[in-house]
């Protein structure tokens, strides 16, 4: 993966570039704490680099702060301590012109009163993109998620999987290069989830995005990611980063391979160890 030339040097980023991969971090989180008003420690001392072109999964039980961390990366909500830096000025979450970040929520989060096209169009409307340009980009986005024939449907007329596709199309339409996805397929049945996993991998590869993906499924995390960040709860924290050193594209073969099973075992053990540590902390 290469660094775009437009990127200006950032000494901190270079200093901290340790893990696998040579690209510079797109997002640098340093010792991030998040304490909610009611005293809940959602996140404690989270330090994480997201590098250009990576597919990183945040994996952990509920309450481990994975969604909180993702939302902080999206600039939604303040940190209670530590810092988050975005690589380029344009990555400053919602920079005016250079906006490159898109967020996909756990639920499809579509406006029920608007047809699919209008839902997908929303980010463009908010950015005042011209009519002709917008139409073209909507067509492209719908095509990418396989919903070309459903632009005029209302969300309620679609299945859960299709609603999620529409939600992804809405994220695609801004042509982002950083996608933050918060358990996007958590509510879907396994077959739909597998299909969408393959689709998102293909889109990731074709478009050279960086994806941060929150999930509580070990299999999903291993299957999709170039790196799995294992998190634990009470307090929410990062316990281990496991690199999934397997080539892309990945497909059905990978799902049944020995190394897939081995990675899943490794990640599961890490999760278990993390949760038992949590028990000790509470005791």
């Amino acid at each position: 993966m290469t660094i775009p030339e437009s990127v200006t040097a950032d000494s901190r980023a270079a200093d901290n570039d340790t893990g696998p991969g040579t690209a510079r971090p797109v997002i640098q989180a340093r010792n991030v704490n998040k304490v909610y008003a009611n005293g809940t420690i959602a996140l404690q001392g989270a330090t994480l680099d997201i590098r250009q072109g990576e597919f990183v999964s945040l994996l952990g039980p509920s309450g481990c702060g994975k969604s909180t961390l993702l939302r902080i990366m999206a600039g939604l909500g303040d940190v209670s301590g530590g810092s988050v830096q975005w690589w380029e000025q344009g990555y400053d979450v919602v920079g005016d012109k250079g906006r490159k970040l898109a967020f996909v929520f756990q639920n499809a989060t579509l406006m029920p009163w608007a047809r699919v096209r209008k839902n997908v169009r929303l980010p463009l409307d908010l950015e005042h993109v011209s009519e002709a340009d917008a139409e073209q980009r909507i067509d492209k986005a719908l095509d990418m998620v396989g919903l070309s024939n459903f632009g005029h449907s209302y969300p309620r007329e679609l299945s859960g999987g299709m609603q999620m596709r529409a939600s992804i199309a809405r994220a695609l339409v801004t042509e982002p290069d950083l996608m933050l996805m918060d358990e996007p397929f958590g509510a879907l049945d396994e077959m739909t989830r597998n299909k969408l996993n393959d689709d998102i991998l293909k889109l990731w590869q074709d478009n050279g995005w960086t994806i941060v993906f929150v999930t509580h499924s070990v299999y999903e995390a291993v299957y999709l990611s170039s790196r799995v960040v294992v998190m634990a709860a009470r307090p929410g924290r990062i316990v281990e980063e496991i690199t999934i050193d397997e080539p892309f594209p990945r497909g059905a073969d990978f799902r049944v391979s020995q190394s897939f099973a081995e990675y899943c075992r490794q990640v599961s053990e890490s999760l278990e160890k993390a949760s038992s540590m949590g028990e000790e902390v509470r005791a």
Partner: protein
Amino acid sequence: MNLPLIKNERFVQVAAPVLVGLLFLLLWEITVIALDVPKYVLPGPISIFESLIDNFPALLKALLVTLKVTFLAFIISVMLGVAASLLFIQSKWIEMSLFPYAILMQVTPIVAIAPLIIIWVNDTTWSLTICAVIMAIFPVISNTTLGLRSVDPNLLSMFRMYRAGRWQELVRLRIPGALPYFFGGLRISSGLALIGAVVAEFVAGTGGAKAGLAYMILQSSYNLQIPKMFAALFLITATGILLFALMVWLSNLALRNWHESAMTTEY
């Protein structure tokens, strides 16, 4: 046996209550005849209907007067109510400061303040309208405010992420999302506007050219024209039902594409 009409939901929706009504009227008529109840105590449905026909020009005139006040009050309630809701959602402070007064209006018995309003406002139509507005405005305010606030927090996050302005947030997100609540408010409010108009007129007791249905009832009861009284009462309730149906129709028209309340479920 195949009974397609019974299976038609729309048909049953209309036919069932009509049947109940007819049975009730029949029972009423039979009771009145069987017990030989005098007309000035309880007239039967047939004599009420006769009275309705006989007095139709006068009743229609009175109905129009009441309708005028009702519609004026309803439209003003909707406009002021929506404006108040839009003001309330601008800040918690505004809502906290003003909402108790909206409740105050709701809990003040209209019969208690109607005489005051009638003294203060010279024009009868307007004094009655103001009374009816006081009755009808609260459901609009409370429902619309609730609707404007009930936004999917994720959608709101998304709007904020894309740096949508307050105006865009209002027009593209809050207002469409509030419509089901708003129409729910209209259903209640339309009925209250009518009741408010009638109650205010009772208190005002306006006769002459500006006499509405309430005055008709008062006058008929003084004169022991009980069938005419019932005929006027019938017109009031019929108007209320029609207003309600109109609101349901409007609501379905606006929400039929997406909201559960306006859709028929198929199994």
